[in-house]
């Protein structure tokens, strides 16, 4: 402990933390973690099915980052970085053609803003953003605006935002025009359950963006790197965007890293022949973060994490779908996509009750949004840990009065 005993932390936290953290605080203090397990100061262990991160203490990543920390954690930005070169080669291997040029920064949020900046550089006078409704592409200013938060204040940014219903090709086609700066989407949207964007809709989006010369931006903060059961969420349909955004889990559970990957043609059109510092940051693409991301990507490929995530969804389905539908149950339905799971309850109150009971049973879920609960375990969660997640979810259901036998698969 640095400054206070564990018992003092909650009060200190409430005194100094910003509201988005304070409001979500469970009161639990974590002292260490490994795999998907969070070890608490009071001796309990929580299983993490909320972070959508990489996983904790994954040895190859920890060891590589520690070694880099001892050598050169951050660069003075004068010499050439081998670690950065190795990461962008790795990202090139991961992404489909023509996505081959990466901008590496400190977070997924920054990466998304970078992709939008790319769009702005391509068409500076355009000011209209289309977003597939329910997408949460980031939490910086434009990401917040696109998520529909604080629009009354952020109108100062001078950007018009047009939400498009998921999979509504007609609405999309009718909204695209020569003032459109970019179309932003997530391959799987977590809003009122899980919604996979269909190939026909994305093909229409691709065609529309090509026709009107605007950027198609896929935010894969929640779906990329294996969460959707494929190495990238865009692999679900095969439709390739102009810019792909990755983050959070990319840092291997060690360091914040974000990246957008685009084509050489688009990158050259905006940044070619211009000062190399036109876009960049002091610490973005630093050696320790690049090492973390490179080793993390290699680990994901070696361990076939995407297939494993697909297996998580199957295990969830097998466990809960085999039970008979029970109209008395509080749980209405669930949806899975890879390792992403949503559970629907009759209303916000039962959802909150189930969330609390799960927490009591040692399972951390994301706070419910309205009547939906979401499971987003770390990428590297093991089968054994996932089995424990499901057991604890079942226990939480029983305590909350939502008999799991009532679960019905609808997707």
């Amino acid at each position, binding site marked *: *402990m640095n400054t206070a005993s564990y018992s003092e932390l909650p009060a200190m936290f409430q005194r100094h933390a910003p509201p988005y953290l304070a409001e979500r605080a469970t009161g639990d203090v974590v002292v260490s973690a490994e795999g998907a397990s969070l070890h608490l100061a009071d001796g309990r262990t929580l299983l993490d099915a909320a972070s959508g991160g990489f996983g904790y203490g994954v040895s190859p990543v920890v060891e590589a980052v520690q070694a880099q920390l001892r*050598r050169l954690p*951050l660069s003075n930005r004068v010499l050439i970085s081998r670690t*950065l070169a190795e990461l962008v080669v790795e990202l090139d291997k991961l992404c489909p053609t023509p996505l081959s040029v990466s901008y590496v920064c400190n977070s997924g949020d920054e990466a998304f803003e970078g992709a939008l900046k790319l769009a702005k550089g391509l068409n500076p006078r355009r000011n209209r953003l289309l977003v597939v409704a329910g997408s949460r592409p980031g939490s910086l200013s434009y990401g917040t605006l696109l998520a529909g938060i604080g629009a009354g204040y952020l109108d100062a940014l001078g950007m018009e935002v047009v939400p498009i219903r998921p999979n509504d090709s007609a609405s999309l086609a009718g909204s695209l025009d020569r003032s459109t700066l970019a179309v932003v989407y997530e391959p799987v949207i977590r809003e009122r359950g899980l919604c996979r964007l269909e190939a026909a809709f994305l093909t229409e989006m691709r065609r529309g963006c090509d026709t009107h010369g605007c950027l198609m931006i896929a935010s894969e903060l929640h779906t990329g790197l294996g969460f959707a059961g494929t190495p990238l969420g865009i692999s679900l349909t095969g439709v390739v965007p102009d810019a792909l955004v990755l983050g959070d889990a990319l840092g291997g559970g060690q360091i914040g890293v974000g990246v957008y990957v685009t084509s050489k043609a688009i990158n050259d059109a905006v940044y070619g022949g211009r*000062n190399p510092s036109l876009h960049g940051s002091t610490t973005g693409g630093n050696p320790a973060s690049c090492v973390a991301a490179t080793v993390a990507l290699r680990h994901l490929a070696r361990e076939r994490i995407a297939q494993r995530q697909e297996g998580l969804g199957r295990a969830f389905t097998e466990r809960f779908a085999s039970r008979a539908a029970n109209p008395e149950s509080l749980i209405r339905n669930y949806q899975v996509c890879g390792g992403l799971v949503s559970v629907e309850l009759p209303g916000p109150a039962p959802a909150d009750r189930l969330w609390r009971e799960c927490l009591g049973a040692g399972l951390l879920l994301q706070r419910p949004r309205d009547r939906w609960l979401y499971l987003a375990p770390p990428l590297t969660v093991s089968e054994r840990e996932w089995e424990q997640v499901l057991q604890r979810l079942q226990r939480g259901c029983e305590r909350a009065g939502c008999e799991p036998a009532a679960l019905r698969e609808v997707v």
Partner: protein
Amino acid sequence: MNRLQVIDCCDKHWNPTAATLYHMSHRTIEHRAEGSWIEDEEGNRFLDFACSYGVFIVGHANPHVQAAACDQLARIATLPYGMMEPSQVGLMQRLARMLPGDLNRVWLTNSGAEACEIALRAVLAARAPRRRIIVARDSYHGKTLGALNILGQHNHRNPFDPLMRQVDFVPYGDLAALSDAMDSDVAAVFLEPVLGGPYLQVPVSGYVKQVELLCREHGALFVADEIQTAFGRAGRMFAIEYDAAQPDIILLSKGMTGGHAAIAATVMSDRLYETLTGLSDFDADYLASGAGASPFACATALASLDFIERENLPERAQRLGVRLISGLRRLARQYPALIEEAPGIGLMTGLKVRNPAVESAITMVMGRHGIHLGHSMNESADHPVLRFYPPLTVTEGEIELCLDKLAASLEQIGSRPVKLFDCLNLLVRRQYRLPRWFVYRLTGVKQT
């Protein structure tokens, strides 16, 4: 991969103009660092007075910070929402304790630009329906698309214009201009207590306080951007201390982990926090950070702050800064055709040079002498400031070594007719638009 293959990767998959720059300027590959020194893969050692524009406050690979960072990695490096972790809470409390007044609410983020964006959103909400933001011309507040809206360096903004309309730029240090720009529609003034970037400028005593008072008079919020100046770089723990100024929001980043991890903070006053959370439509996610406040970065920052306070680095920066600045000014007087002046405060120092070509020449020759400097990378500035930002742990001997090498470099450069640099400057201003083969031929390197 050998050096050329690494450059080729940068060209194909990262930043082609940076790759060209690496190749033509014979840059080598970084390998390790310690104290004030960087070593490349070929074993060459360089004295680091660049420090990524001020990041490495506690020296490279500081053992105290390294140990804390590695220890935290072994325990828990990242955290899901909802959980608390001792280093994260400890850092929030520590910053609140260090800062003056009621700056008690701490948003921890991943970069200075993210911290700036939190502040921008906060002031737009807290002072709605006011919309105008005032910033200093040539100021630097980050390059994310949101932060770009209030960036004072037009060379970085122009390719993306039009941006936010209601942003006004006033000359730094000009109180009358600021006073004229203030009215009841101004939501906030963003100000660096010392103007950083390639326009390094130390304001007259009392300027920052007067800016604060103008904000109070007009009901605007005062945001102090201390991303570059804080934690001793400018000779005080925070540069606002020179004027005893009290901002509503302070932005912190670069030196906070002493160059061991990326982190930033937006710290706001209790009063502003209450205004925001009291808004009828306030949504906590309006001011969220996706992956901020990692325990790894927080533990690293705490260890760095321990070291800064224990070693009294701000005082050291002030003391050694006097020596460095007087040496730079002595050389500036010796070469008035090349150097206009040597601005600086603490160990935030530089040479304001004749033109970008002179800046490039000094940087290149100093590089050959084994000294890294903070090149502005700004070919559009008339008189860019070449920065000398050593670690605050730099020794007197290292400062003398740098000044000796600078004297030798200036002697070499000064032996050329100054008109040569005016001609070269025409090329420097266009260097990124020139064909690559031409640039390589001009600089004597073989095409990759």
